[in-house]
C-alpha cells in the first residue's frame, strides 16, 4: 500500500543535505511554515532558497535567512529594509532577482522537462546584461533556464495517502508548480483525507509530484 504520510516534521525533512536548493511556496499565504521552522531546526546550511519574495522582518523566511544558513536567495522581490535586504547590502547573501512570471515559468519548466525557454520579460532591462537574447517574431527575448529544486516545501489544505492535494483559494500560488520541480517534495497538510475523498477532476496537485506528507492540523 502506498502511504506517503510520515509521522512528523523531522521524518518529512530527513536527509536534506547542506547545499540543497530549497523551493518554498507561498505568497501572502500558502507557505508551509511548520516545515520551514522544521528546516531551521534540521540544520542544513549553505542553502539556495527559491521563494517569491525575501519577506519582511518577521515571519519564517526572515527567520531562516537570519539563521545564516542561506547562501543564495532567488526571488522576485526584496525590500531594502528587511533581513534579506540588509544581508545582501552587507555582502552576506547572494541574490538573484527574477521577474515573478519568469520565476514561476522557470520552476514549471523544471517540472515539465523544458530545458530552456525564451521570454520577452526582462529582455530589454539590466537583468539581461551579459545574457543570451534573440529576436523572435520581432521581439527581443531572453533565454531562461529551469530552476530545479532538491527539495520543495509545499502547503496543502487536504492530502490523501497517494499525495493528492488540494489548496485553499489563493494559497495555491506556487505550491503545485514547486511540487513538480523538486527531487523531494514534502507537504504539510491541514487535513488528512481518505483516498478518493478528493474528486479526481479537482485534484490541484497530483500525488505523482509528492513524496512525503506531514499532517499538521491547525
Amino acid at each position, binding site marked *: 500500500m502506498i502511504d506517503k504520510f510520515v509521522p512528523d516534521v523531522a521524518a518529512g525533512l530527513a536527509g536534506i543535505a547542506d547545499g540543497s536548493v530549497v523551493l518554498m511556496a507561498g505568497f501572502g499565504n500558502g507557505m508551509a511554515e511548520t516545515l520551514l521552522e522544521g528546516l531551521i531546526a534540521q540544520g542544513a546550511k549553505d542553502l539556495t532558497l527559491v521563494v517569491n519574495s525575501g519577506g519582511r522582518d518577521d515571519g519564517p523566511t526572515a527567520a531562516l535567512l537570519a539563521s545564516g544558513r542561506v547562501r543564495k536567495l532567488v526571488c*522576485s522581490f526584496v525590500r531594502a529594509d528587511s533581513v534579506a535586504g540588509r544581508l545582501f547590502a552587507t555582502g552576506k547573501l547572494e541574490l538573484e532577482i527574477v521577474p515573478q*512570471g519568469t520565476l514561476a515559468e522557470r520552476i514549471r519548466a523544471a517540472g515539465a522537462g523544458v530545458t530552456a525557454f525564451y521570454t520577452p520579460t526582462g529582455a530589454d532591462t539590466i537583468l539581461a546584461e551579459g545574457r543570451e537574447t534573440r529576436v523572435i517574431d520581432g521581439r527581443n527575448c531572453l533565454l531562461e533556464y529551469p530552476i530545479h529544486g532538491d527539495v520543495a516545501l509545499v502547503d496543502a489544505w487536504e492530502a490523501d495517502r497517494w499525495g493528492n492535494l488540494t489548496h485553499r483559494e489563493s494559497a495555491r500560488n*506556487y505550491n503545485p508548480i514547486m511540487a513538480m520541480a523538486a527531487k523531494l517534495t514534502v507537504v504539510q497538510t491541514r487535513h488528512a483525507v481518505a483516498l478518493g475523498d478528493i474528486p479526481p477532476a479537482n485534484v490541484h496537485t497530483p500525488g505523482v509530484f509528492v513524496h512525503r506528507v506531514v499532517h499538521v492540523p491547525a
Partner: protein
Amino acid sequence: MTFKPLDRAGIAARIARDIPEGWFVNLGIGIPTGVSDHVPMEREVIFHSENGVIGAGPAPEPDKINPYLVNAGTQHITLRTGGAFVHHADSFAIARGGHLDLCVLGAFEVAQNGDIANWARKADDPTKQVGGAMDLAIGAKRLWVAMEHNTKGSGESRIRRSCSYPLTAKGAVKRVYTDIAVLEVGQRGFIVLDMVEGLTRRELQERSEADLHWA
C-alpha cells in the same frame, strides 16, 4: 485661474472611467490598486491578481476575512461570483500570454517612446522590487501607467524624453494618467488627451520634460 491636481484616489477614479465592461484587468501596487474601488459592481470588469486570483473583489468586512484569500499586495480581498483560482504559472500565463485587456502599473518615469521605469532608482539600488511588473508590462494588450506628473521633492518631471532609471520594459506604455493630465503614447511621442480644469497647455508643458502634442 488655478487648477487642482487630482489626489491618488482621483487618478484611480479617472482611470476607472475609461475601463469598459468585459475587460480583464490587472492592477499594480500603489495608485492602480485603488482603480477597482471606482468601477461599479454592475459594470462587470474582471480583475486579475498575479497570485492566481481571477475575479478579485473588494476588501471583506473585517469580520468576514478569509485568511486564504489575498491579492498580489497581500491585502485581504473577496472573490466575485464567477471568479476562479489558478496556480502561479497559470496566472502568469494569463499575464504573459496576452490575455489581459489592460494592466495598470505605477511608475517612476515614462518616456515618450513608451519605455517604463518602475522598479529601481539606479542599477545598484538596494531595493530589488521587480515583482511581476516586467511580465505584466510585456504581456498585457494595453499598459497604462498611473503616477504623479512630477516628483514630490524637487518637482522633476516623470514624463521624460528617455528614462533615467533602469527600465521595466521598452516601448510598452500606451497611456499615462497623472494627477494633472492624461497622455497617450503615439508615434510622435506624448499626446495630451485630457487635462485637469484650469491647467493651461503651457503649464502642462512646463511640468513635462518631454515635448507634448495635442490631439
